[in-house]
């Protein structure tokens, strides 16, 4: 499937792309107020992390799946919100220059800044040090009830 179809070939600024940019911007805007409160990384939003490109790519998949007769616009309205969040908060932006490649050909070049915004450290090998047993909790925490 040609992921870049529709915004590379037609140019970035076609109407549909602008609409998707408006949507992702409304969902996850730039937030200068939060930047003042919590630091500059909180400024950035979906426009900065190119979430509209992600949506375009996902839409191309969905369109290819949905046969002519199906009303795909309708089917998509709510999926778009879910996909906006998945695109923004998942690793996708970190594929960097390979982000629009076929999914088999992407390479994670860096951790996305959205992970910093939520303080997610990325995949880890083990969190075994957090382990407790229910009985232990029962003793330590719950015995007061």
């Amino acid at each position, binding site marked *: 499937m040609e992921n870049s179809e529709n915004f590379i070939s037609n140019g970035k600024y076609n109407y549909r792309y602008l609409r998707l940019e408006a949507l992702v911007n409304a969902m996850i805007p730039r937030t200068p107020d*939060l930047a003042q409160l919590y630091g500059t990384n909180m400024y950035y939003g979906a426009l900065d992390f190119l979430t509209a490109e992600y949506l375009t790519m*996902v839409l191309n998949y969905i369109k290819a799946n949905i*046969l002519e007769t199906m009303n795909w616009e309708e089917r998509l309205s709510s999926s778009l919100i879910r996909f906006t969040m998945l695109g923004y908060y*998942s690793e996708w932006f970190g594929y960097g220059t390979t982000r629009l490649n076929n999914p088999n050909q992407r390479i994670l070049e860096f951790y996305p800044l959205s992970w910093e*915004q*939520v*303080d997610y450290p990325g995949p880890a090998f083990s969190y075994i040090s957090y382990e407790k047993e229910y009985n232990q*909790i029962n003793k330590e925490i719950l015995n007061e*009830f």
Partner: protein
Amino acid sequence: MDADVVIIGAGGGGAVAANELGQKGIKVLVLEAGPWYGNKKWPDPNADHGAVSSSSYEDLSIEILKKNFTDLEDDMNNFEYGKFRWGPANREKPSWPRIQGDRGFSWQNSGVGGSTLHYFANSPRAFPEAVDNVWPISYQELIPYYEKVEAALPVASAPSTPKEDIFYYGAAKAGWELLDSKDVRTPGYRPQPNAILRPNLNGEGTESVNPNLQPVGCTLRGHCVNGCHIGPTVEGVAKRSTLVSYIPRALRTGNVEIRPNAFVIQVLTDADNEGLHAAGVLYRDTWTGEIVEVRAKVVVMSAGGVESPRLWLNSDLPFNEWVGKGLINHWFDCVSGIFDEEVLLDAIGIGEIKPFVGQNAAARFDYPGLGVAETFGFSPGLYSSLLYGTSYKGNSIYNRVTETEPWDVEGLVTGEQLKVFMKDYKRTLSILIFTDDQVNPNNYVTIDPVIKDENGSIPVIKYIPNKIDQEKRNELAYISSDILRKAGAKIVIRSNWPPDIFIHIACTMRMGYVTDTNCEAFQVKRLFIADNSVLFNGLGGPNPTLTTQALAVRTSEKISELYFS
């Protein structure tokens, strides 16, 4: 004859049947629509066709599995092109279409292991009251099969991490009892009975532990949903999807062959003095489009709650008004709490919950008559999209929460508010609700009269809960909010998911209506069903897979007795 038994689908139910039949010396051919991860014959299963089939345990490769499963949620779980999607192995091709309610999605995947590849491995039994005097077989009759599967997977009590600690704290404070039986008859909370190998690093391990250690057992790293690959061998992987539990065991019998990339498009029948009976199948190679005929003495449908009825209908098998009808999905909801650091420190001695730490859903609350609530957490993409991006109540800014409602926010959360809430991701605890929804013939899977894809007429899924379902679900949302409040949450958010989110998909080919109590179709002899679709009801709310697997063991015994003794 190409095999004694052909099994359609290598997921939660089909893999169990393959092993059980193989153990009895019966020759089994499993046809699976999706790819096979962690097998030397398919080193790059999403890019190349690879071999046709594998029947050797020696083909399994943990190195390849570790390469295939990347822990990254867009790569693994993207509904359209992720490795775990309902679609062909080749990710250059689109996913397979289904028609369903606008706001939802059906979260199933193709591949050896089926939807257990991404499942949380929670393996509770049905509530006895939902089975006894309701099902055509008794709870007592299920118990030995439960025990067998619980020992085989195996099922154990989940360890705890901060997200479970704080849940137990809230549940105890709210006055609920700790449950200590697998057979749940009264409400209460308990560590999750799950099919995840117990951690054995004895606390020595840290985030920076040497990955060459290859521990046996869970490391609590939180990637159950993205595909677990922790273990020294495929068979030793911590989360016991059927890919790593029943499939390796089946291969070791020497009697089981599995063909991935094989989408069954028709069940073939013959009619003789025995009446109408299954005789084989036609499948389509998902890479080449080639159609292949396979003949067998018995056919087992294990294609899942949507595809089994679809296949029946596409095969023009005899009319039965219950085929596809009675769909349950436990009408899920999600309620979450955001905590202050000091409150958490006070309660559990650590200031963060870290939804990405620990098994994805390791503590639960059961309430026979209402349903289930269980904790869940994972990495931030899926997490945000399920907590804040999934609702049928519209945007939360337009929803006024009334004084009697125990949550502060209801509906979609977007804009600056989303970023503020997600900033507290590490101090958020989420609870998933499964409603004890009722079987209703108006909820169904059928095929579209017009639209076809390369595998035949496509499925249409319709599910509208009734008032009683709604009331039960509301009550569970109140109880969950109360647990969060008692635990000290400062903000409680109810997502209020749409009814058409399909995660537990069951009861579309029910025992007693489509099949007899052996799970053999009334109208087509030698055609058996071993997946969620054959369940009589929603079990009262508990996660369905263990019961499907217990039944698959029982059905395999019946097949052997009836046709191979």
